[in-house]
């Protein structure tokens, strides 16, 4: 079964002055366990695709299926990571990572235990009773990752989750996220402006164009680059040739 499929999806935004076509004729399928990147210029509808998968938006036309089910509303099958960590400042780290359980009404002690264990494995167990502002940016984004994984999603949507971080922390987190997704066999969709990040972390890269938003090209990252960690991948020769291809595609867009 395909993890995520888009069939003839179009999305229009209406305003007083007329309509804007954000996405037009989007078709793709993502297999379970795959990590796919969406890259492209601002306004090409990358984030709109994430919102559609998450069920936050309803497409104007076409069908979106997640795990074979037509998407109608947000569900716990999709976890979402934002550009900002979006930790709630008035809650402790423990309360922050358990918010998904609170909302879905699943307060079983086993899930709670598992989530706290996840926090421990990220090396953050001693921050459980602290407040977000007491943590560094990298730590906060790791907490956000725990929060996302806590509700047992099968699909993780990553909306530029590393763009606000220092370069070094960003590389570490890319590594951590890829390892975590692979380990749990999760499907990932990453929206990013960083082409290097897209190639280093993902199995496939969709290059998008704008006005209207379409998928212009789909690139498969070679197996030997994929086998490397994001940090090592950046050093390989294939990485650079792939980078140049995408770079060339995007030159025409900006």
């Amino acid at each position: 079964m395909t993890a995520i499929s888009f069939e003839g999806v179009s999305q229009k935004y209406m305003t007083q002055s007329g309509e804007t076509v954000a996405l037009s004729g989007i078709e793709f399928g993502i297999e379970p366990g795959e990590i796919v990147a969406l890259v492209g210029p601002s306004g090409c509808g990358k984030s709109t695709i994430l919102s559609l998968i998450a069920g936050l938006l309803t497409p104007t036309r076409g069908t979106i299926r997640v795990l074979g089910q037509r998407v109608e509303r947000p569900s716990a099958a999709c976890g979402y990571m934002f550009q900002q960590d979006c930790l709630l400042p008035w809650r402790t780290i423990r309360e922050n990572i358990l918010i998904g359980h609170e909302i879905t009404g699943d307060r079983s002690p086993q899930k709670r235990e598992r989530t706290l264990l996840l926090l421990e494995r990220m090396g953050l167990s001693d921050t459980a009773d602290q407040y977000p502002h007491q943590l560094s940016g990298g730590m906060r984004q790791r907490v956000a990752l725990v929060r996302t994984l806590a509700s047992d999603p099968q699909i993780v949507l990553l909306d530029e989750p590393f763009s606000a971080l220092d370069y070094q922390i960003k590389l570490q987190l890319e590594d951590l996220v890829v390892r975590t997704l692979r380990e749990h066999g999760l499907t990932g969709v990453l929206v990013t402006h960083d082409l290097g990040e897209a190639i280093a972390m993902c199995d496939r890269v969709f290059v998008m164009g704008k006005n209207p938003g379409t998928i212009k090209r789909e690139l498969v990252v070679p197996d030997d680059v994929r086998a490397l960690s994001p940090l090592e991948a950046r050093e390989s020769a294939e990485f650079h040739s792939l980078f140049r291809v995408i770079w060339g595609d995007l030159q025409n867009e900006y």
Partner: protein
Amino acid sequence: MNTNFWTRGAKTPDHGQFLKKKRLTGLGVFLTQAAIFVLFIGLWEIGARQGFVNAFIFSQPSKVWAQGLTMLADGQLLYHTGITVTETLIGFLLGTAAGTLVAVLIWASPFLARVLDPYIVIFNSMPKVALGPIFLVAFGQGYLSIIMMALAVSVVITTIVVYTAFRDVDANMIRLVRTFGGSTWQVFQKVVFPAALPTILSTLKVNVGLAWIGVIVGEFLVAQSGLGYLIIYGFQVFNLTLVMLALFVILIVSTAMYHLVAYFEKRTLKWRD
């Protein structure tokens, strides 16, 4: 380490110097504040005795003090203060609660927000105390009119400020709750309300002041009891000492209330520090 009164708690000699300087500045501020107060009261008292301040119009501190002691002894002062404080508290709590409730309703229903918008604007720009006579006719010559006045003064501004705070909540935090499949009520409960709580609490401080305005004006109009009544009564019988006394009591009690609310605010927002 060798520390004295000014450098107590110092970690290093330089830290001690820092602490000492900070404490001396703090003391200087306090002493200056006290000096201004003493000078003001002193000049007033001396001026009244020497005749360059008209004691008949402005009274004088010693007379106000004596009047205060007399009224404290016969229980009148506590009686009137108690009434005014009770009215203020009720008006303040009702105004804040009603204002917040309306804000919640118009947050939950954008349609209602648009419908009510012109009415809120009109009612906000209107001087609420002008409604005094209508309140008196509608709610009677008593406490109810006074409390309604306090409520009217604070309710609209509370709605506006709290609603704005609700709308300013980070859209991503709302998306976060939505991605977990949260309902509108959960969005409100988990994110919007806690995020707006600092604003709600700081409107409490404003509302204490507004409730005082409403209550004093109400007591002017109803003129039966309370500190506002003492002011009006004192003015009518030309006992300005009574007016000054009532003013001083209002100053003290309203300041105390403000600090109480500020303390409550600080305690509720512990996560900030």
